[in-house]
């Protein structure tokens, strides 16, 4: 009986594909994650558009072209572009603004309206777009208007208030600003890592632990395919699946990074690391249920360590020994844009990631050979 290793490899690899094809739920889950990447992309583009709108000029809307307006026109803001607009209905709901406008000063000259006194002679309402950036921008704009006003009407009664624009989208302060490049980079990295976790860890455990529990792996080990070859096929299968999913995700999130060697290094190392974890968990558990449960616990553990490391030094140290931290950090750095300052840090992440993954792979291989394929 003379069968080439390539023929055995091909047979086992095809078997894995057929098994996946017969379990469409697994493929649907990968599809859902890719859909999430699409949504992230759409959302971040929308927020980027909103962010670009902050480049629009600030508006000074007034009912009377008085000395203050003249003064403001003559002493332009050093950084912000300012446009002036006359509107007799200022400070009423009749004034409408375009959706891109996010910084307005409505100046109402009460004297010009010849109203009975006791009210402020000038009122100013500063209106912002609702976002953090817009509020910051309006604050700077307000300081400039108020300083001119103080110079011109120091003896007058002035009323001022700070309000959102009627069509602004106010947000809770804790929300994630996907328009922000750093946040977007972090979310993208997490999303890609989640997909890899699903394909290389959860799916690996599900498919392999099932074979182990039913002693199919033992039956296969009695054929010409050795347990080592079985593991190699599984690694190549899940790695290829993970890289296909990552390719689609990258194409959606940041197509430019498809051509970075560093990105692919991280993705391959991350996939192998996750497969290593899955192999260890499968080897240490007899049943599919317990192995899957351990996989879930592993995910929870990573999440808890990441969360606690924000406040506790001990967990920050523990995080350094976890390849997941290096994957997410390095990917975020890539998406955020590499500068000369963080080259060294990126190199350190890549090196540590590679070392941890190699160690994990050796441990998982030894465990697999000793007890991974046996019931």
């Amino acid at each position, binding site marked *: *009986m003379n069968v080439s290793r390539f023929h055995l490899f091909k*047979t086992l690899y095809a078997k894995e594909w057929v098994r996946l094809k017969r379990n469409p739920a697994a493929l649907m889950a990968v599809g859902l994650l890719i859909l999430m990447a699409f949504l992230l992309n759409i959302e971040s583009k929308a927020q980027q558009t909103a962010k670009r709108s902050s480049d629009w000029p600030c508006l000074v809307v007034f009912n009377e072209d008085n000395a203050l307006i003249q003064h403001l026109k003559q002493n332009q803001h050093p950084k912000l572009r300012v446009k002036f607009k006359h509107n007799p209905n200022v400070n009423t709901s009749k004034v409408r603004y375009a959706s891109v406008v996010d910084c307005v000063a409505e100046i109402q000259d009460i004297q010009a309206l010849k109203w009975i006194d006791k009210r402020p002679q000038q009122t100013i309402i500063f209106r912002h777009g609702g976002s953090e950036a817009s509020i910051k921008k309006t604050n700077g704009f307000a300081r400039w208007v108020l300083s001119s006003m103080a110079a011109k009407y120091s003896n007058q009664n002035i009323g001022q208030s700070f309000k959102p624009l009627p069509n602004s989208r106010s947000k809770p302060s804790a929300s994630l600003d996907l328009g922000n490049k750093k946040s977007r980079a972090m979310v993208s990295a997490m999303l890609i890592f989640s997909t890899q976790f699903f394909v290389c860890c959860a799916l690996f455990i599900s498919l392999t632990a099932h074979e182990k529990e*039913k*002693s*199919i792996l033992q*039956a296969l080990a*009695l*054929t*010409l395919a050795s347990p080592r070859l079985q593991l190699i096929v599984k690694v190549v299968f899940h790695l290829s699946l993970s890289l296909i999913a990552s390719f689609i995700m990258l194409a959606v999130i940041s197509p430019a990074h498809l051509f970075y060697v560093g990105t692919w290094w991280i993705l391959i190392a991350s996939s192998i690391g996750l497969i290593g974890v899955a192999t260890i968990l499968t080897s240490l558990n007899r049943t599919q249920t317990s192995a899957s449960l351990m996989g879930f616990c592993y995910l929870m553990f990573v999440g808890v360590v990441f969360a606690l490391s924000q406040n506790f030094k001990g967990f920050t140290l523990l995080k350094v020994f976890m390849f997941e931290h290096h994957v997410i950090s390095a990917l975020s750095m890539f998406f955020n844009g590499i500068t000369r300052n963080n080259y060294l840090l990126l190199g350190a992440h890549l090196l540590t990631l590679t070392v941890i993954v190699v160690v994990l792979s050796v441990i998982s291989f030894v465990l697999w050979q000793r007890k991974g394929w046996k019931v």
Partner: protein
Amino acid sequence: MIKIQDLTIQYGAFKAVDGLSFSVNKGELFGFLGPNGAGKTTTIKCLTGTIKPTHGMVEVAGYALPKFFHKIKPLIAFVPDTENHYEDFSGRENLLLYANLYGVPHHRVDVWLDRLQLSEASDVKVRNYSKGMKKKLLIARAMIHEPQLVFFDEPTANLDIHSVKLVRGLLREIANSGTSVFLTTHDMDEVEQICDRVAIIAKGKLLDIDTPTAFITRHAERYCDVQYDHQDQLIRTTLHLDEPEDKQRLSEIVLNEKCVRVHSREFRFEDVFRKLTGEAYR
């Protein structure tokens, strides 16, 4: 085909197999019997390369284990007691997978499907097979590469009487074709009917090894069930004819009492097994 010398397999301090020695000849249908926990499965696991012996020598087809396991692999097959197929694959797909892994031509798949009466259901997913069909598929899978030695672990469990007849006939046929069959079963009738030689083990130790007929002859005990009328009362008793007292008692009953029924009890292989293993666990 198999040569085992002083085989010992230990799990910590517990000896699952303790100094086992026997051999199996080519083309022999060898029964390997023992009560639950006697060490049968452990021995098979060792012979199929899943576990390593702690002590002793094991040789299969002239190759020492575990060193030359890779050379033994194409020569052996194992039919486990539990079905381990890919349930999402059809019967044919399962066999094709193994045919590819052994590099055997695909027409053998149809030959074995036909031989085990599975041709009609060959394209049905194994998930929808009955237990008996799954068992038959296991046998087809094991035989697809025409091994020289096949291990069968309770091959007729869960099969209907027709399938049992088919499988027993097949086992005999396999052995007659020159392939050695290593069979473990709890069905003593099966052993008596088809095995050439039998080894009985208990607590990891070999109790005895011989042909089923020789076992019965050597260990046979003669019993007689007697029913007689004594003072209008029907009495029933069993007498051990190898005991002088019981022998004398039977003569007295026949001479003095009104016998209703005298029936000699047939000593079967099951009784041999019970006797030997019972003594071991006493």
